């Protein structure tokens, strides 16, 4: 009879799979690992970083990238940048929103309100593609969730602009970025030292801006993150306590039977 240890075989197979995997995934570099404050199980966003990140988004990214699923009111909601109501109103009012038609059938513009969606820089995808050399700047609402490396990847791309290696020819309007798949990107490095002057006095280094704006994008993609973590802890603690109670009941009930549970 063949003696067989199934556990050992499973371990052997899994180790083999782990070892053959790296051989075939060399087309892009792993993103820089950043110790984000929102990464842990109890993670929260850094409020000040979110506010600075919004400033970077508004002054730099928003000139090309839309964020159409967010409303200005979100900026004041708990778990986000938590601007005060006055600040949110001021941010919204700084934008001209097209509304209408009015009673005469005419479209008109008015200052934005907190309930308005973020105004997009282009009227449609075609316009934004045409204005950006044929590459459509993706909407940023869920961008962090839409890339395999998430926030680490966003940060890495912002920091990954370099001189192309010797011998690599790049077309006009194409830039070298070592974290992009294929190492080519159609967006010029959006950040440069001091492109933003932070209203809270923080020094606007490349690293600082990249971290802040990535934090903001991570929140934009998952505005529910803090609440999710909080509710999750309560739910799991509740379930664990209930599990213990049910386990004890089960032990008691099954003690009447001469059988293992």
């Amino acid at each position, binding site marked *: 009879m063949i003696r067989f240890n*199934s556990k050992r075989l499973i371990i052997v197979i899994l180790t083999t799979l782990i070892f053959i995997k790296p051989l075939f995934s060399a087309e892009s570099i792993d993103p820089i690992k950043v110790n984000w404050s929102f990464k842990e199980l109890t993670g929260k966003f850094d409020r000040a970083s979110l506010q600075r990140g919004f400033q970077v988004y508004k002054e730099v990214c928003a000139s090309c990238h839309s964020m*159409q699923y967010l409303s200005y009111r979100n900026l004041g909601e708990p778990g986000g940048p938590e601007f005060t109501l006055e600040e949110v109103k001021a941010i919204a009012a700084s934008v001209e929103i097209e509304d209408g038609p009015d009673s005469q059938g005419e479209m008109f513009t008015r200052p934005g309100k907190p309930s308005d969606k973020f105004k997009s820089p282009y009227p449609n995808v075609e316009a934004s593609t045409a204005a950006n050399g044929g590459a459509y700047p993706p909407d940023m609402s869920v961008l962090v969730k839409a890339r395999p490396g998430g926030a680490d990847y966003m940060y890495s791309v912002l920091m990954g602009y370099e001189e192309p290696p010797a011998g690599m020819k790049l077309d006009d309007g194409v830039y070298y970025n070592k974290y992009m798949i294929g190492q080519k990107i159609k967006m010029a490095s959006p950040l440069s030292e001091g492109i933003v002057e932070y209203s809270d006095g923080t020094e606007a280094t490349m690293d600082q801006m990249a971290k802040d704006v990535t934090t903001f994008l991570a929140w934009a993609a998952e505005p529910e993150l803090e609440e999710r973590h909080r*509710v999750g802890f309560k739910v799991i603690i509740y379930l664990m306590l209930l599990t213990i109670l049910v386990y004890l009941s089960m032990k008691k009930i099954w003690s009447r*039977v001469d059988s293992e549970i």
Partner: protein
Amino acid sequence: MSDQEYTPKSKAGKWFNDRLPLLTLGSHLSDYPTPKNLNYWWTFGGILTFCLLTQIITGIVLAMHYVAHADLAFASVEHIMRNVNYGWLIRYIHSNGASMFFLAVYIHIFRSMFYGSYKSPREVIWIIGLLIYLLMMATAFMGYVLPWGQMSFWGATVITSLFSAIPLIGESITTWLWGAYSVDNPTLNRFFSLHYLFPFLISGLVILHIWALHVPGNNNPIGIDLKKPSKDTVPFHPYITIKDAFALLLFMIIFSGFVFFSPNVLGHSDNYIPANPLVTPAHIVPEWYLLPFYAILRSVPDKLGGVILMFGSIFILFVLPWLDTSKVRSAVFRPMYRYFYWIFVIDVLLLGYMGAMPAEGIYLALARIGTIYYFLHFIVVLPVVGLLEKTDPVPMSISAPVLSSGADPALAKKDYDKI
């Protein structure tokens, strides 16, 4: 069974029960004699019922806010995530719930394979179960299309295009399925409609599945027929209900871990990119639970051949009760089958892994070996092992493991410990 003798105590109860014997049914379900030696692998039936109900309830709520239109679907999902009260929770439960549902169903199926639960007299339970599984796959596939992200769109394109492999009428069938000349708004609409319908068909089949189970009663870890009710059985309530509740709670803790702390880890990030018919993703992969079949599909160089093998890999399960020639049910007493059982489990895991990798080089080679072995397991291994194998002695009952004549009592003790 003692069902027939049940009479409600109250007058009103008796009046009602004479007209519709619901109380008799309740009493039958509560008293249902269940083997007392069922292990935790048997708790997944209850867990699956929970999964189905969770999917239906969260799904109905999601449908109140979702818009099945190619231009609006993606935005309506984001609306659910951002503006609907606890919409993120409902959606994450629903999307992770699908994965948990499949995790549970795979454990349930592999449990059945290990303990021979598909064998006579339980073939019909097995076949109904497979029909449920088929409907689950169709439902999950269509559900994955609804958010109308890149993987939704391209997954739908790949899977529906399979039908174009059918000779002569393939193209017409595909157009008919799409309701258009490509995956488009009509496709999304009908997928939504069917995605809403199928869970109720599954519910109906679940009732039949349980009904069919209650005719012969549960199989059990030692796979022997029991006298019911007897010292070997316990009433379903409270013994099995409390045990199922305990296992379900453990399952819910894992489920919650996914929902609250890594809700997107089982999904694909490309599905947060709105569907774009002009841009094909680098790798189109289905959800993890369909990967073994995807690997089988791609391991055949010919499209029609791949489709036939893929469907064949599921349909061969329907004849499993007749391919397994062994009279002994439980693998506990089948040393040779046990060995091949685990190879089969590893083979399916391997196929799943290959399904996630690009179909080239060593991955393709391994996927082909895996596919060939998958079919060999059913067509060659199972019939032959059943005939060649010398099974261990099987006890006569759970309470007192008496041996079939001539066996060594010490061996029986050893076997009993293994259970």
